[in-house]
């Protein structure tokens, strides 16, 4: 019974990773950039939620929506200011810029606010439900449900709307999409907006679930979410969801086995194994390299 409980905890953690991983995978799919600053957008989302709840007394859902909106704008700003001119630069230059932007956000935020941690207010009543002897907290259930709803909305946007169609076209072939009259800049901005909004939601969930937030909180979940994206096959949206869930469950199992110190290493070991044996990820197709 305890194992099922751990599994549920793992799935809650995994759904947070999955939400962050979606942003990574969408951005990578469209401009082939590992957006290192994504973890910091997640952090900004957590803090917006924190100030909305603790400062303005908003409820959970208004705070969640506010955090998502602020993060969407923030993500678009990052893209417009830093990444847009690097579209034709080498991949390494883009990667270094992304690292720079990430550090700038982290330390800029510390400079403005200070590095001390904050305790997330109790916004959701945490009830324990007893299902056939399994203790399930209402928080993890809610996180899971809202994450699934967000992912369904995302699926709908990507597959049923015009902007989603444009995103898929641009990620397939940017130049051809441009020739077909798709506004590439708008599409890329929309991708950043959606990905960042999901990261913002993940930030609020993280705060509610772990109750402690700090300016450098985005680094480790950010890298792990990237691992999740690679695990599922980078650029593939269902892959990011599955990768996030798998990673969350694996981490929880590693902790439950008594190796909680090695939890962070588990994610990186998974990453290296997947890169070595199946670099295209679980859902990826093997692409042959052309000269």
């Amino acid at each position, binding site marked *: 019974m305890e194992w099922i409980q751990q599994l549920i905890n793992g799935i809650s953690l995994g759904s947070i990773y999955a939400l962050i991983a979606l942003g990574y995978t969408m951005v990578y799919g469209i401009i082939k950039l*590992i957006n290192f600053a994504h973890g910091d957008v997640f952090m900004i989302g957590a803090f917006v939620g924190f100030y909305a709840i603790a400062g303005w007394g908003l409820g959970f859902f208004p705070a969640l929506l506010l955090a998502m909106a602020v993060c969407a704008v923030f993500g678009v700003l990052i893209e417009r200011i830093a990444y847009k001119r690097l579209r034709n630069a080498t991949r*390494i230059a883009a*990667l270094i810029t992304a*690292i*720079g932007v990430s550090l700038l956000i982290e330390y800029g935020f*510390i400079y403005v606010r200070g590095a001390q941690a904050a305790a997330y207010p109790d916004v959701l009543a945490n009830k324990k439900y007893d299902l056939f002897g399994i203790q399930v907290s209402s928080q993890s259930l809610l996180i899971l449900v809202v994450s699934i709803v967000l992912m369904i909305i995302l699926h709908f946007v990507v597959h049923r709307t015009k902007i989603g169609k444009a995103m898929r076209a641009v990620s397939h072939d940017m130049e051809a999409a441009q020739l077909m009259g798709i506004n590439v800049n708008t599409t890329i901005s929309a991708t950043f907006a959606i990905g960042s909004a999901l990261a913002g939601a993940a930030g609020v969930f993280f705060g509610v679930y772990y109750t402690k937030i700090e300016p450098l909180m985005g680094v480790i979940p950010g*890298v792990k979410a990237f691992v999740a994206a690679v695990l599922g096959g980078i650029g593939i949206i269902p892959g990011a969801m599955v990768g996030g869930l798998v990673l969350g469950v694996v981490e929880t199992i590693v902790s439950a086995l008594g190796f909680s*110190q*090695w939890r962070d290493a588990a994610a990186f070991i998974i990453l*290296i194994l997947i890169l070595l044996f199946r670099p295209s990820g679980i859902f990826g197709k093997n692409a042959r390299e052309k000269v």
Partner: protein
Amino acid sequence: MKKVKGFWIYVVLSVVIYGVVQLLINGGILNPFYANTLIFIGINIILAVSLHLVIGITGQFSIGHAGFLAVGAYISAIITMKFQLPFPLALLAGGIVAALAGLLVGIPSLRLKGDYLAIATLGFGEIIRIVFLNIDYVGGASGMQVTHLTTWTYTFICLFITITVITNFTNSRHGRACISVRENEIAADAMGINTTYYKVVAFALGSFFAGIAGGLFAHNFYIIQPGNFGFLKSFDILIFVVLGGLGSLSGSVIAAILLTVVSTFLQDYPETRMIIYSVVLVLVMLYRPQGLMGTREVTDLFGKWKGPKGGNSYGK
């Protein structure tokens, strides 16, 4: 003939720099703070040059260099502190073990390219850190006490050896092979160059010198902790190479000196330092992606002798 003459100029210049600084330290003109800053600059130059070999010359984007620094630091500290063996031996052992770690990491991960390699090396760097965090023999998270053994003489000798070896490596047949891997891996492969071999060699050599720097680093601070060798440390080294110019040895030396001096003065304001670093990094990438020096060397300006020529373009 010309090359040999250039080499002797370089040797004489190094001896003069060493002698002057040593005299200043002995004479008490340089106070311990400045002497320590000089040692720190030396260590950072070794790190920058060792990463320059991997990123600048061979074009393999590694962002886990602090992991090898950690290996060197811990191994050398174990040798001096637990086995009471002499310091030079510890430095050498730290370098060798770091090179072995480099081989271990490099052989599987160098099959990857670009972003994937970067992420894999980041992962390996973190794994190395977590391993040290979990070994009680080296003190775990609270760290390990190390006596202060690093002096200007040791630092300078190591620095001299590092620069000499890497310059000569770059100018040799093997170095040219590495540059060809950077410029176009497929073409290099087609020309009969064993690209995997050269990538791994460059990686291991870079790790070796990072390990040496780790030994100096450990014995310069009185304590080493796994937290010192996180991603931010790798980033510190990366920025030397990127700012100096990918493919320019003297560029990374200049950047290392410049940034170490800046960060020493900003020691009390760590946030400001990181903000400056990140802004510099972003601005350099946006407006001068080739870095300060590009692939040129300081020696090109004098035209006296050929410096460690790192090719004319960086993957363009």
